[in-house]
């Protein structure tokens, strides 16, 4: 069977240091098995990381560990250069990448370099005859499109929470690469990195539960955070809340922030502008709490409460704690 390259996001986050495998990567392996034999490509994982074991457990026939300063200290160009070489050597049936900002950029450069079509923000991928077809939703969720890659090696960037990762033990042979990359690919250099404080909450982009606050919080996110913690979820914010300086931009959900696709999206005090909808419309279950019964968020909510979030959220948090005993 043909190989399928799976680009593993080992970028450090506040929740996982580099090397730890994120759930989204295991989902990619599960999808890759539909198309061929998964080969995991891990960028920038430190020596001694436990990545290969976790990846093998989820179906990686081979784990290619790509390290070295040439890759780690630069932006996306070296990664796409290394992947282009792997595509040439191994002629894979497809390359699956995380649909993160970086994953999309790597895919873009790789597309031009290898003469391949690319689909981003996919929520499903499968073989249709001998074509790789990806499903995505566009125009803030008003359309679902299916796109076939018709030229080159199909490059598909997939959103987190697309499938449940399924364990499927495989060989997981480890190959270590410390590639040299061209001077041109190294022309954008990371000269400084200031780590952020860890929040202890799940990563927003791949959390299965997200509780978001908007203008209706009036700047006080404590009730949103408490409910998120009770549910074991991540905290999101609308652009209005971020622009007001109430919450960091890295927590923004929407067109210009993160795209989330959790099992549960709970919007508190968020009206539901089209830009916000674009970032959360593939959520499985949507719950809204808002004082304004006319708020557009109610049109897309599976369950809505018209009322004051400052009393409803704490009461719900308390009730959840009580149920958990």
């Amino acid at each position, binding site marked *: 069977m043909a190989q399928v390259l799976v680009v593993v996001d080992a970028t450090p986050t506040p929740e996982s240091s580099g090397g730890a495998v994120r759930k989204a990567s295991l989902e990619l392996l599960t999808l890759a098995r539909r198309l061929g034999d998964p080969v995991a490509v891990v960028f920038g994982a430190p020596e001694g990381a436990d990545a290969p074991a976790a990846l093998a457990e989820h179906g990686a026939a081979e784990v290619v560990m790509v390290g070295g300063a040439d890759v780690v200290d630069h932006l996306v160009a070296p990664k796409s250069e290394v992947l282009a070489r792997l595509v040439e050597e191994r002629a894979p049936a497809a390359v699956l990448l995380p649909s993160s900002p970086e994953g999309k950029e790597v895919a873009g450069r790789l597309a031009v370099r290898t003469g391949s079509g690319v689909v*981003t923000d996919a929520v499903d991928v499968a073989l249709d005859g001998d074509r790789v077809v990806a499903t995505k939703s566009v125009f803030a969720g008003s359309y679902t499109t299916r796109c076939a890659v018709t030229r080159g090696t199909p490059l598909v960037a997939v959103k987190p929470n697309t499938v449940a990762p399924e364990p499927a033990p495989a060989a997981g042979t480890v190959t270590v690469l410390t590639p040299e990359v061209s001077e041109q690919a190294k022309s954008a250099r990371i000269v400084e990195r200031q780590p952020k404080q860890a929040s202890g909450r799940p990563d927003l982009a791949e959390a299965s539960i997200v509780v978001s606050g908007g203008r209706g919080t009036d700047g006080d996110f404590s009730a949103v955070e408490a409910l998120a913690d009770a549910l074991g979820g991540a905290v999101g914010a609308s652009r209005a809340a971020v622009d007001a300086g109430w919450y960091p931009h890295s927590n923004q959900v929407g067109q210009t922030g993160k795209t989330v696709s959790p099992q549960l999206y709970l919007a508190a005090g968020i009206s539901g502008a089209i830009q916000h909808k674009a970032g959360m419309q593939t959520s499985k279950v949507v719950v809204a709490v808002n004082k304004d*019964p006319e708020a557009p968020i109610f*049109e897309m909510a599976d369950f809505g409460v018209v009322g004051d979030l400052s009393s409803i959220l704490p009461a719900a948090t308390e009730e959840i704690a009580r*149920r958990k005993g």
Partner: protein
Amino acid sequence: MKIAVCVKHVPDAQGDRGFRADTTTDREAVDGLLSELDEYAVEEAVRLRESGAAGDDAEVVALTIGPADARDALKKALQMGADAGVLVSDDAIHGSDAVGTSLVLAKALEKVGADLVLTGMASTDGGMGVVPAMVAERLGLPQVTYAAEVTLSGGAGGTVRIRRDGDASTETVEASLPALVSVTDQINEPRYPSFKGIMAAKKKPVEEWTLADIGVDPADVGLDAAWTAAVEAEARPPKQAGTVVTDEGDGAAKLVEFLASQRLV
């Protein structure tokens, strides 16, 4: 220094966007406008010129691809302070995917001869966010993306330094010019065109180029040359109306009851 800003004319997101029978975006059903995310790139370009950071001879050229209507996107950029506009328009471009679009942009940028290329982080219609990376790859330029702050030093042959805010860290990235920089909506507050800006824009030059002018073979772009093909574009059925209750002291209990029924708690 010459700064080129790539802008896109997109259907207004407030409208009812859709597709034509050939699966390309329907650009007639809804009014078009300058993509909101490109306004930040235009604003940044104009600020770099106004502040003197781009040198005394700085010039800002707004570049777009599209049918005649796309001139409106250029007009807005000129009203905001860009010095000149270029529209690449050719019937053969219709239906191009990101790959085809990046080819046209790259060849047009070669002709513009920019020292710095600024773009938004994504369009607000296709929203793939891959075109800046593709253009940089084609032109062999360093690509410095998701800038929340841009600093220039040393003029046209100098360097660009940006700050970007990631999940785990804030990074400072540096590259030598010429380079391509994409900016986020955190970088500035785009201005509304002033009356003076609107009047001045009427006198600014806008050139219109065809594929022949930039040396692109029509066979390499358009729907038939796309490297991806839409198999299907289906309007999502309207979401079934959910339950909405009004809080009368029992809102939280009903909410948790719902979550429990969905096995979410």
